[in-house]
């Protein structure tokens, strides 16, 4: 194997300096001498018919330049990926309290806010539904059409009845997960500027530029080419800056085009809580069958996801849940159904994990309960049933790429000394005030989009005449460290220093539509595209170098800023070669494109090969539970992940530590509370996420298992790191107390009293 110079080495993030010195420019930092400030009037009811919106008073408020409603939408007031039913501003109905009714642009933010009070809205209340259970009932008020059930995906394998007939032990369990917020540091913000030729430039913390641009094109009735979306530094996204940013961008763009002036819109934290989509809460019912020896025979699953008011990505989220419902285990007979249901609550959509944290919570708690029932060690049960190279998944896919699942289990177990620790802890007195426990959870995860849609991405690599390099990518940096990864790949291919590579911001004007920056696909797709673009430039450079050096040697290389011969002699500086290429009329500017391998999904039969490759992971946690108060301290945490190939070890560590923190928040603390569709938690004083003091000692185990599809064998790491922390810690709590917690979050009340107490 080739000895890498930059790939696999610890490097500092290419965007670290701006962030730590405060120089990075966020959308709320943008200013323009002529700019106007936008403000939104939101709904006061959860479900209502819009009778009338009268803006005649508001337009004459001081400083006001425009007040717009749905009637002013130039194009079609509907956007969305599969089921486009989201509105920029409410037209026929209000479907949740975050719906916007009107927008104002004024010369100051204060004047804009004041003008909102001059808008007269008449709403006719409709009966509303707040839980999927109510919403699924016959005769429940329909939110978009007659039925509120708008997604049903299934998986079928074998014959479920046979599987249960063969089982010695059958367990039925129900688990639930909570509605949670992405909690990115930077609330949503955009600036929209008219380009003077009928088009518009939108700058903002947009995660998925092409999706947002498509939405704007429909809403503004403008060709895609007339809309340019440029990304500003993103202060965290975690899947959260998609539809909510399209809404914000569309409103700002409408105001900008109407007034002919730049319009900035910035959500406050409270607005962000009320308006932005969340992670779907799930209710999951399981029936699992196993032989006495622990071999799984059958699994039946029914999942219901609360989608809130709009469809957004729910069809895909629910699909991933059902496809991965059996976890990383071989189950011969599977029957799984998952539903997405509308309610009059805040809508839910993409969030790091995308349907997996819910399903993994269910199956991993279930595996522990089954192990308890069988009198087996939970680790042994998982090793016995774990997928290996060549195994068939719940969807019938044969895993032909090397499967490193068992390795993640074994390496985690070694790291935490699982068997011995578990025995030691079993010996603690049952009634001790503080009791420790150790727990685990595991997963497999399909990389990239899979059967969700076309999976392809582009990049441009351009070597300047002084040898410095510019890279543009069609996939965004949203904090995950992607720009550092593609800078490393470019530096590796071109034999230059990392410091010589600059990645310029994501801009729809430059790059072909590369799909969204989601699904842990950046490195695999965008990284490969970058490697291809850089490879093309490299071949051109070497060809010119041979001409200049009058040699036919095939084995020349680019290394550490030099053109070197096979013997390692330095023949010519890369910067001189770059200058020579320019003089000789050779452009060192190349485009690379990578389309992922074809996959196959049969929706009718609920079978197929939904992803072209997978990553595997295991988390183990040791906790101490105060049995009198329900307080949980996480003492140590091991997170082992097969990442394919490590490109930036610091980046992988960052993903693992951050993923664990997010997963522990999901497990122990986080819950957006709603009462009758009204949000109760609207800022971080009540919505608790873990602080640094709540974090345990963490050990990251990087399992390298190069895959033929990713650049240098790299796969994914962003989402898997957050999808199994919650079940690991909850299983550890249950080991400590001997009581099962089956609902999230496992807060003090739930751990102590074993149930969510009704609040009056």
């Amino acid at each position: 194997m080739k000895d890498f110079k930059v790939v696999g080495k610890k490097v500092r993030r290419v965007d670290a300096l701006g962030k730590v010195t405060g120089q990075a420019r966020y959308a709320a930092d943008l200013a323009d001498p002529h700019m106007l400030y936008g403000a939104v009037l939101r709904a006061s009811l959860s479900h209502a018919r819009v009778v009338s919106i009268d803006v005649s008073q508001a337009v004459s408020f001081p400083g006001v330049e425009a007040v717009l409603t749905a009637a002013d939408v130039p194009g079609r007031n509907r956007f969305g990926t599969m089921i486009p039913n989201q509105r920029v501003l409410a037209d026929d109905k209000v479907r949740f309290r975050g719906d916007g009714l009107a927008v104002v642009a004024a010369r100051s933010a204060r004047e804009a806010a004041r003008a909102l009070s001059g808008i007269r809205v008449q709403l006719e209340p409709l009966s509303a539904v707040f839980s999927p259970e109510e919403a699924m009932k016959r005769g429940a008020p329909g939110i978009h059409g007659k039925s509120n059930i708008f997604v049903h995906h299934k998986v079928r394998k074998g014959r479920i009845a046979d599987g249960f007939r063969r089982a010695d032990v059958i367990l039925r369990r129900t688990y639930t997960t909570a509605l949670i917020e992405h909690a990115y540091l930077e609330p949503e913000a955009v600036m929209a500027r008219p380009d003077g030729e009928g088009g518009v430039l939108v700058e903002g913390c947009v995660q998925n530029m092409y999706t947002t641009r498509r939405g704007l094109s429909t809403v503004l009735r403008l060709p895609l080419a007339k809309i340019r979306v440029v990304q500003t530094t993103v202060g965290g996204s975690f899947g959260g800056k998609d539809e909510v940013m399209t809404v914000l961008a569309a409103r700002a763009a409408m105001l900008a085009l109407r007034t002919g002036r730049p319009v900035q819109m910035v959500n406050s934290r409270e607005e962000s809580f009320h308006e932005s989509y969340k992670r779907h809460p799930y209710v999951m019912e399981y029936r699992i069958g196993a032989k006495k020896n622990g071999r799984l025979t059958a699994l039946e699953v029914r999942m219901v996801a609360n989608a809130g008011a709009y469809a957004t990505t729910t069809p895909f989220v629910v699909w991933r849940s059902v496809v991965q419902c059996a976890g990383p285990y071989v189950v011969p007979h599977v029957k799984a159904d998952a539903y997405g249901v509308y309610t009059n609550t805040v809508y839910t959509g993409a969030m790091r994990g995308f349907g997996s944290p819910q399903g993994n919570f269910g199956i991993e708690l279930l595996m522990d309960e089954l192990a308890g029932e069988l009198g087996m060690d939970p680790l042994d049960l998982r090793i016995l049933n774990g997928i290996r190279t060549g195994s068939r998944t719940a969807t019938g896919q044969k895993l032909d790429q090397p499967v490193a699942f068992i390795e993640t289990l074994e390496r985690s177990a070694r790291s935490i000394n699982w068997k011995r620790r578990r025995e030691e802890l079993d010996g603690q007195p049952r009634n001790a005030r503080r009791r420790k426990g150790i727990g685990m959870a595991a997963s497999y995860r399909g990389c990239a989009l899979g059967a969700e849609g076309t999976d392809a991405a582009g990049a441009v690599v351009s070597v300047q005449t002084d040898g410095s390099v510019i890279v543009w990518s069609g996939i965004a940096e949203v904090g995950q460290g992607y720009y550092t990864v593609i800078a490393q790949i470019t530096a590796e291919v071109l034999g230059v220093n990392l410091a010589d590579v600059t990645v310029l911001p994501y801009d729809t004007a430059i790059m072909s539509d590369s799909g969204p920056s989601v699904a842990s696909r950046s490195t695999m797709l965008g990284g490969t595209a970058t490697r291809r673009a850089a490879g093309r430039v490299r071949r051109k450079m070497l060809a010119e170098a041979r001409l200049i050096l009058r040699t036919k040697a095939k084995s020349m290389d680019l290394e550490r800023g030099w053109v070197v011969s096979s013997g390692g002699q330095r023949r010519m500086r890369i910067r001189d070669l770059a200058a020579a290429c320019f003089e000789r009329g050779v452009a060192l500017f190349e485009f690379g494109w990578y389309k992922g391998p074809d996959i196959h999904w049969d929706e009718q039969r609920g079978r197929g090969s939904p992803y072209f490759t997978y990553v595997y992971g295991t988390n183990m946690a040791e906790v101490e539970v105060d049995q009198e108060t329900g307080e949980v301290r996480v003492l140590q945490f091991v997170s082992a992940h097969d990442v394919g190939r490590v490109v930036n070890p610091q980046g992988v560590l960052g993903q693992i530590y951050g993923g664990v923190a997010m997963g522990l928040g999901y497990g122990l603390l986080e819950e957006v509370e709603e009462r009758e569709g009204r949000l109760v938690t609207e800022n971080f004083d009540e919505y608790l996420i873990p602080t640094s003091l709540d974090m345990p000692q963490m050990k990251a185990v990087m399992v390298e298992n190069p895959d033929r599809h990713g650049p240098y064998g790299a796969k994914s790491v962003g989402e898997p790191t957050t999808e199994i922390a919650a079940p690991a810690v909850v299983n550890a709590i249950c080991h400590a107390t001997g009581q099962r917690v089956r609902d999230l979050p496992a807060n003090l009340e739930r751990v102590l009293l074993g149930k969510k107490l009704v609040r009056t």
Partner: protein
Amino acid sequence: MRTLEVLAPETLEEALALKAHHGTALLPLAGGTDVIPGIRRGAYGAVALLDLSRIPDLNRIVDDGTEIRIGALATHADVVESAIVGAHIPVLSEACGTVGSVQIRSRGTIGGNLCHASPASDSVPALRVLGSVCEIRSSKGTREIPVGDFCISPGVTRVLPADLLVGIRVPKMRPGSRWFYLKLGQRRAMAIAKVSVAFLAAEDGGVLSDVRISLGAVAPTVCGAPRTAACLEGKKLGETVISEAVEMIQTEAKPIADIRSTEEYRREMVGVLLGRGLRGFLE
């Protein structure tokens, strides 16, 4: 962008004169940890701010012989770091040390904490068991109100429109006093109490007297548990006495349910914390 009028007097007399003139239209600003978010939320309506930070000595902590006088503008960090507080009224150091985070403790003041009148305050339960007295000034003179009577409901105190809370006088604890402050929150920092218990008593040969108990976050204001305190009065601590006290406080406390916790959990925890604190004395 919001513009705010801020008046920043340099003497207390000037501040009192301004307060006498503007009354509730002038909102005193100490550390700002509650006031600033409140203003952003629109909780105070149209107000100007009276910045107290330029008034000299308003943050001083002084040993007055039998009492410690704490200036209203002393921060939680000032209290925690004060050797005087540590030596004579350690239950207050303990309580103030559990407030928010380093940043919050370095900005938030003891006077501000009292005036915010949150039932979940950490300093108030400790001040209350210490028998502290609030010093309230107006241009007309000085009034004193015991901490236990100071808060009326969340955010509402007995400070009148022309008044300023200028300090708190805290009687020194007797040597050999038994005390604790225990708090339960959902996380290890930046946690507002779900329940807290402050306890102070004199002890002689294992026998408790002058027992005082304050409960945080169980009622609309920090409250006492007089029946439980009375039940411990004159008793020698032992497992039976403790169990009785725990049981009694769980009947005596009438917890509320709110976003931070439930009635059932709080009732249980009031007893757990009391029992824990009392058992700590036996060790």
